[in-house]
Each structure stands twice: as structure tokens, then as C-alpha cells.
């Protein structure tokens, strides 16, 4: 007798299961239809996306970077390549001074290279987003972007010329009247015309909207 009751209880569990899925059937979906809808900007904000350079407060198109190379050596996967900016070409007066100094057998006083990067390349396809570079940067010039919609069709799409990317972002931000009021975290700012970016650059940031 007890076994019959147990069998009925067992079968009842199936009905309970059906009731649950039936109830869920009637409830609205919880997924985000991506191309038509996007996750809220708040939930994308904390995402650690591909790193980007941070510009100077006064001059947003110029990075704070002092080309100290700490990030290059800290990176576990060697995805950052930075070169120092070349020393400025000596003016005719300086050239003359150098020539005179050399003629005197002294060490000529050449113009010192600026503390700024010449190129700043970042290969996102190698990056594991660990944040080591962000941590070691002494001038807080590296930060995570929260670009969660990045796509590319070839490897080179993920090799970024960070200086050009920064310049473009700064230009786009400048073009906008109120940068903080932008509702969607899409890559729209980067899609704006980029006057600062040199036309010959390759491997620039290629967000979805730009490709």
C-alpha cells in the first residue's frame, strides 16, 4: 500500500515539473536581443575590455605616457610594444653649436628626446586582460576600455595603434557637445571622423561600427 502511495507521489513530481515549465513558458523572456537591444551602460561600465591610453587632462589627444617601458616588461604575454619618441631635429643654431662642440672635442649637447612615446602598439589578440600594465603604470596612463562590442574579421584588426586610437577618441569627444550625456556605451565615438589619425596608419582600433 505504501508503495502505491510512493508511486503516486513519484508521478506527482512529474506534474510539478510540468507546472514549473508551464509557468515559465508564460513569463517574458530574459535574454537581450543583441543587435536590437544592448545591455545597460552600467553593466558594461565595470567590464575590463582592451586597454587604452589615457590622455592628459589639458590635452586629451596626448597620452600621459612617459615611455618608461614598465608596462612592456610587466606584461605576461608581451602584447605591448612602445618606442620612445625620437629626439626633435636640431635647429640650425643647435646644429652649429653641436658642430662647434665636436670641433672642440667636447661632448656635443644634443636636444634630449621628449618623455613621450613614439609608437604605442597593443596586440589585443595576445592580451589576457590581467591588468598588470594598468597597475604598474606610474602616471596612470593606461586604463581599461569597456568596449564590449568589438569585432574583427582578421588578426590585424586587434593590433591597435593606441596613439591614433586616443587621438580619435579625443577628437570624437571634442566633437560632441556633452560627452557624459551619451546614453549607449556603443563604440560610436570612435566611428566619428578622425582628423588626427594619420591616413597611413595600419592596425588602428577597429570597433564594430567602424568595420
Amino acid at each position, binding site marked *: 500500500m505504501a508503495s502505491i502511495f510512493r508511486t503516486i507521489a513519484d508521478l506527482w513530481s512529474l506534474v510539478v515539473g*510540468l507546472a514549473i515549465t508551464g509557468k*515559465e513558458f508564460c513569463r517574458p523572456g*530574459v535574454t537581450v536581443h543583441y543587435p536590437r537591444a544592448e545591455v545597460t551602460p552600467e553593466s558594461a561600465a565595470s567590464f575590463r575590455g582592451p586597454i587604452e591610453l589615457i590622455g592628459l587632462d589639458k590635452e586629451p589627444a596626448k597620452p600621459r605616457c612617459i615611455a618608461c617601458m614598465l608596462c612592456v616588461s610587466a606584461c605576461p604575454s608581451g602584447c605591448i610594444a612602445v618606442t620612445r619618441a625620437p629626439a626633435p631635429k636640431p635647429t640650425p643654431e643647435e646644429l652649429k653649436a653641436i658642430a662647434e662642440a665636436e670641433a672642440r672635442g667636447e661632448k656635443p649637447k644634443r636636444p634630449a628626446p621628449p618623455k613621450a612615446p613614439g609608437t604605442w602598439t597593443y596586440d589585443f589578440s595576445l592580451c589576457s586582460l590581467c591588468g598588470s600594465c594598468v597597475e604598474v603604470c606610474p602616471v596612470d596612463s593606461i586604463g581599461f576600455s569597456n568596449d564590449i562590442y568589438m569585432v574583427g574579421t582578421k588578426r590585424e584588426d586587434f593590433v591597435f595603434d593606441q596613439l591614433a586610437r586616443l587621438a580619435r577618441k579625443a577628437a570624437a569627444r571634442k566633437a560632441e557637445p556633452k560627452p557624459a550625456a551619451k546614453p549607449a556605451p556603443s563604440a560610436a565615438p570612435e566611428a566619428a571622423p578622425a582628423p588626427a589619425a594619420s591616413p597611413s596608419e595600419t592596425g588602428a582600433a577597429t570597433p564594430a561600427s567602424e568595420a
Partner: protein
Amino acid sequence: MNATISFDSVLHVVLALVGVAVFVGLNGLLLVYAERKVAGFIQRRPGPYEVGPQGILQAVADALKLIGKQLVRPDRADPLLFWMAPVLAFFPVLLLFLPLPFSPLLTGWDVNLGLLLILAFAGFNVLALLLAGWGSNNKYGLLGAARAVAQSVAYEIPLLLAVLAIAFQEGTLSLSSIVATQGSMPWQWNIAVQPLAFLIFLISALGETNRAPFDLPEAESELTAGFHTEYSGMGFGMFFLAEYANMIVACSVCTVLFLGGWKGPFLDGAWWFLAKVYALLLAMMWFRWTFPRVRFDQLLNLNWRWLLPLGVLNLLATAFVMKL
């Protein structure tokens, strides 16, 4: 059976076959779409959404893709058996639709042994699965085929017992007469008299059509895809269509035997028949997206230890009552 087979009746059958082929094809598309939508809604997601408005063309796109795909036969598979299996799985199913009474006027072939015809031709499905599994020279296929045979043979018996109970009660094997003896109101349907037979029939139908939770011949987490592991393109498509066609047949027979066929409150007609069939089909989908799969020995235990004795008891009780 009619003693004389006139040209008219042959024409009728041929036309009906063509109609059934169209019906099965369209229904296949519709059911694939419905299944995926049901699965989507149960899982709190939209289901097919991109192809056409609300994704209604998704099934068509899938069908076109299947048709366009290359048919690959594994090395060392038996070519005859391998290609015969999908054909054998699909075409006999079309015959099963002939005796189904959609409405008093809409019956392909109103034969007085309709029930027998359906049960007989339904047996072909097992053969097709066996050939598919055996002929594709794949171990998963072989295991799937072995499961399919054991399962189908086992579940045919309680199915037959449930059907027999109705046949006893009605004294006929003609599907349209079985419908005719039932009333329009739900309490006048056979399910009111034979609830146990209805349950046995429904469970056995799930087993016969290899639907979850009894989808053991496919059992994707165990046998990758079971008997149709090696099939691509329309080879797989035929099995797929056959599965849905079999589901429709099983639900139609269930409707005819237990749910009053085309009869219903307010206005009798084919719409009642279709509404009931689709309600049953939706229930089958609902089961699939709710329950885990049973194990093979449990499947057979359920059959031999529960359904079969209950079916026999039910049949005896029916016979006893009828004798009184």
C-alpha cells in the same frame, strides 16, 4: 473492405497521398518552428527570431540548408541499407495518414480496417531505424539501432492493448465509425470511459515515436545522435520529417480513439480534429523540454512491469463490462 475498387476510389487515394505529402511537409516545418518556439519560451528566450517576422521562416531556411547539404556516406557503410533507411523511414508514414478521418468528408481512404493498417505500417519505422543504425557502420549507430528495436517492439504491445480496449468497446476497427460513436461534449468522448487506456496510449506513443523522455535511440548525450549519427543533409532530414510525421499520426490516432476526433462542442469539423492534435503535439513538446531522459532498462521496466499488466487488466475489464 470495399469489394470493388473503382477508378474513383483509386484516384481518391492517389489525391489523398499527394495531399498528405504536402500536409506532412508543411506540418514538419510548422512543428519544427513550434518546437523551437516552445523550447524558447519555456527557457525564457525568444526562440527563432531572425529569419522572417518572429522567425517564422526559420524552419524553411533550415529545410533549404538540409536540402543543399552534401550527402555523405561513411567509408565501408552498406550503400543499399544506408540509403534505403531514410526512405523507408519517411514514405510508409505517408500511408498512415490515409485512413485518418480529419472530418466526415475529409478522409483519405475510409477503410474499415483503418486501425489495423496504421498499426501495421507503423512497424516499418523500426525497420528503418534498424537499417540506419546497422548500415552506417558506426558503433553509436549500432547501439542506437539496438535500442530502437527493443524499445519499439516493447512499446507496440501496450499500445495495441490500449487500442484493443477501444476496439472492443466500439466493436469496429474503422476510425470514422469510432469517432461517430462518440459525442460532441468532452464527457461523451472515450477518454471519459477509458482514462487508463488513454494514459497507456499516450505513454506508449511517446515510446513509439522516440520522443523525450524516451528518446533513447538518439540519446544525444550518450550516443551522440544514435541511429542517425552518420546521416547528413536530407538523409537526416528524412528521419527528422518522419519523426514529426509519426508524432502527428500518433496524436491523430489518440484524438480519434479517445478525444472524439472531429467532434467538439458548438460545431463539429476538421478544426476540432486539428486543434486536438496540435494540443497533444504541444503537450509532447512540453514533456520534452521538462523531463530528463530515462535509462534504457527503466524504459523497458516501465513497459513490461507497468504498462503491459495495466493494459491487460484494462482490456480484461473492458471485455468483462462489454460482456455484461
